[in-house]
């Protein structure tokens, strides 16, 4: 049924993942704090994800292993959206939006709260305020320093002034929820959550945004530089399948977004007519005697239905549309990562070819650099596949939650309407019974 079969991959344990290779018997229970098991002498370990060795956590490796196995365990579905099989030790929340007005500009800040037991953090709790710019900085830094990983998307940066009110409660609420999701996803990622930029974001009073952690950016840049000039000849089918899946999924998301917007539009227009409809009943009741109560009753029910419809539309635009858009952005990120992977592979193959030719010519051995390239490619592939699995699993949870939520809201809408009509019917039937009793007594 599926065009691509990303889940049909072999467990990545078969590939040489530096983190797993360094471990003996990883125990899921061991916390990051406990096991600072540094892979012996493997300088390459540092290169794969660009983070300094100190922050690589064996616990996260084991969780990676667990996740990479085909997981048909449906119990996963009942767990928290972002839970992994390990116990979480980093909790982040984004809430409490506030408007700041200065002479130069007006902007919103959000409270970012952190609770953690990780020793990378000096304190167990933090609470500070950040603005969108800061999130944007963080994301940029993560992308640069972790090019082999999928970075979750941020809500849209630019909004058309005059079209969207940047300070409306609705907009701020929606944006805040998206920022919260972003941060939670990063904090939940076994590799990204140990990124020092995240640490700085969560703890530093002042984000000195210009100061780059030199070591990291250098590594990041090396990955980027490597990209130029090489063309990929044969992409392994699993990655092509991923790309195709993303394209189709992107299309379907776009379609669903359009459908949802169309429904919203129709519902809004329906609401306009329905309001007038109710008021006609109310007006009519003014010229009636014994029909007054039934007519007023109908007007009241129609009015209740209008309110229920309003709620439904509001929840659609606040809950449904943002998630659809978020996943479109996610797809973009994923496609970027796929491209980088391609480039990394292309570079390796290019260098290898050149080296082989050289070897044939003058017996120069294949340089170490080429082997390093190969490692890079294989690590990239492993990271990518791990992130892909995570992403698929999260996507499934997200959409399951989204769609059941949408179904719930619709059910509530109908329930509200039904109970209004129901109580009207019983009221009117009671009245009728009374009236007939009266006439019988005459």
């Amino acid at each position, binding site marked *: *049924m*599926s*065009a*691509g*079969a990303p*889940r049909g991959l072999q467990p990545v344990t078969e590939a040489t993942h530096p983190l797993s290779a360094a471990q003996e018997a990883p125990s899921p229970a061991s916390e990051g704090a406990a096991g600072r098991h540094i892979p012996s002498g493997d300088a390459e370990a540092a290169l794969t994800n660009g983070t300094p060795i100190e922050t690589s956590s064996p616990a996260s490796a084991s969780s990676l292993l667990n996740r990479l196995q085909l997981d048909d365990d449906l119990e996963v579905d009942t767990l928290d959206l972002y839970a992994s099989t390990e116990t979480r030790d980093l909790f982040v929340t984004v809430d409490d939006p506030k408007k700041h007005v200065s002479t130069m500009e007006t902007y919103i800040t959000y409270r970012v709260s952190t609770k953690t037991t990780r020793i990378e953090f000096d304190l167990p709790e933090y609470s500070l305020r950040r603005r969108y710019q800061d999130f944007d900085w963080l994301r940029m830094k993560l992308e640069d320093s972790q090019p082999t990983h999928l970075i979750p998307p941020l809500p849209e940066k630019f909004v058309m002034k005059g079209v969207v009110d940047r300070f409306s409660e609705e907009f701020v609420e929606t944006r805040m929820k998206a920022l919260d999701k972003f941060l939670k996803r990063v904090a939940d990622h076994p590799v990204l959550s140990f990124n020092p930029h995240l640490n700085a974001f969560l703890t530093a009073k002042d984000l000195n945004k210009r100061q780059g952690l030199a070591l990291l950016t250098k590594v990041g840049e090396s990955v980027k530089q490597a990209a130029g000039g090489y063309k990929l000849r044969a992409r392994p089918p699993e990655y092509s399948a991923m790309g195709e*899946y993303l394209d*189709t*999924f992107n299309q*379907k998301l776009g*379609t*669903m977004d359009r*459908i949802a917007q*169309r*429904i919203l539009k*129709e*519902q809004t*227009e*329906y609401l306009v*007519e*329905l309001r*007038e*409809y109710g008021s*006609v*009943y109310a*007006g*009519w009741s003014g*010229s009636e*005697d*014994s*029909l007054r109560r*039934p*007519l007023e*009753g*109908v007007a009241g*029910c129609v009015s209740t239905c209008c309110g229920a419809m309003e709620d439904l539309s509001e929840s659609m635009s606040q809950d449904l549309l943002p998630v659809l858009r978020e996943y479109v952005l996610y797809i973009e990120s994923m496609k970027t990562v796929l491209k980088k992977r391609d480039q990394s592979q292309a570079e390796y193959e290019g260098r290898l070819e050149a080296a082989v030719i050289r070897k044939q010519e003058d017996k120069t051995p294949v340089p170490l650099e080429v082997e390093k390239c190969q490692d890079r490619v294989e690590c990239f592939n492993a990271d990518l596949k791990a992130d892909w699995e995570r992403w698929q699993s999260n996507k*499934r949870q997200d*959409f*399951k939650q989204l*769609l*059941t939520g949408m*179904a*719930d809201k*619709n*059910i509530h*809408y*109908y*329930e509200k*309407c*039904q109970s209004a*009509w*129901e109580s*009207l*019917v019983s009221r*009117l*039937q009671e009245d*009728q*019974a009374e009236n*007939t009793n009266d006439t019988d007594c005459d």
Partner: protein
Amino acid sequence: MMADSGSEEVAVLDNTDLTSTESENNAINTMVERETALLRKIDISVAESEKRTGKNTVNMHETYTVYLIETRPADAGAEGGQPVGDSPWRRYSEFELLRTFLLVTYPYVVIPPLPEKRAEFVWHKLSADNLDPDFVERRRMGLENFLMRIASHSVLSNDKIFYQFLTEEKGWRESVLETGFQDKADSRLKSLSAMFRVKNPDKCFTDLKQYSDELNNAISHLLRVRVKVADRMYGVYKVHGNYGRVFSEWSAIEKEMGDGLQSAGHHMDTHSASVDDILEEEEHYADQLKEYLFYTDALRSVCRKHELMQYELEMAVLDLANKKQQREELTTGAVRVFSLKGMSSKLFGQESPEQRESRLAALQLSIQASEEGVLEKNRECREFMRMSWEDVKRFKEQKDRELREALISYAIMQMSVCKKGIQVWSNAKECFNKM
């Protein structure tokens, strides 16, 4: 409002049946108020419709629909028994003729209206074509309802022309025309279009006229907005069908999520399709409202007739007063009122005493006749007011009862729409949970 189209028995049912949840049953309940002598004898139904073609009065081809009127003995039971009379086929224009006859012959009765001549207040998917089978079917039911209302009216049900309409294939048209009602019809038409002012209008009737105007406005407004609501509702439901398609396409690229998405999509299709039946059912409600919209015309007719009679009475009284005035002048010689005779006698000389005597005598006779005329008109007027007010009372009770029932049925219908919605979204939710 609508009699059950399939059954041939239209018995009187208990009007206090409050718990019926089917609008069809409600329709039978509310329609027949009391059993008349006619209904004790026969059951009436408009059983079928048929298309015919023929030449019209200007010798052009036309296609029209005819309706079969069946009358059977009331106690015939399930088999039906032999029809009473010819079981004539009648077209809409003949119904119109019958109604006009009744309007003219019983001006104090609120005459039941016919179903609409052309489809109005149509939401966009419904056909506005007179030959459309759905329209014809709804018209058939409306015509049956019309006949039943007449048959259950204490006065109208005894009318011979009505009975002939039900039972005689040939010659009915001639019988109607023979009654000479056309003459009265012409004068009635004149009265409807004439602008005259009544000096002492009866408050009850002015109130009634005002009420019928208000009712007319309210119902037409309601029907207009209902159409817009129906169109919008249709749009909302139909767009959900698109979810069905996209879920199906999306499920093709998913592994675990696929099945749940696919089945949820089917439920979305079901949901989207359900709106057709919902709106079809609402048409019955709209038809009930329409009948009362058209009833307001009948109410206005009665008011107008009263006005006309009142006006004629006032004119007769005025005329009598003028004549008495003239008599006074003739006897006293004082000329206060202008008369041609008076002017000419001034110009050409006084008339002789003999001439004056004969004129006085003629005037006296005329006054006598006028006095009798005024008494008669007065009596007629009061009789009209009494009879019409009784029928208006009957109508009001019927209207209150039936519209109340209609509103309750409407509310019950809305409840079932909600139930359907809950069902389909609960099913979809189950599928989503399996994703």
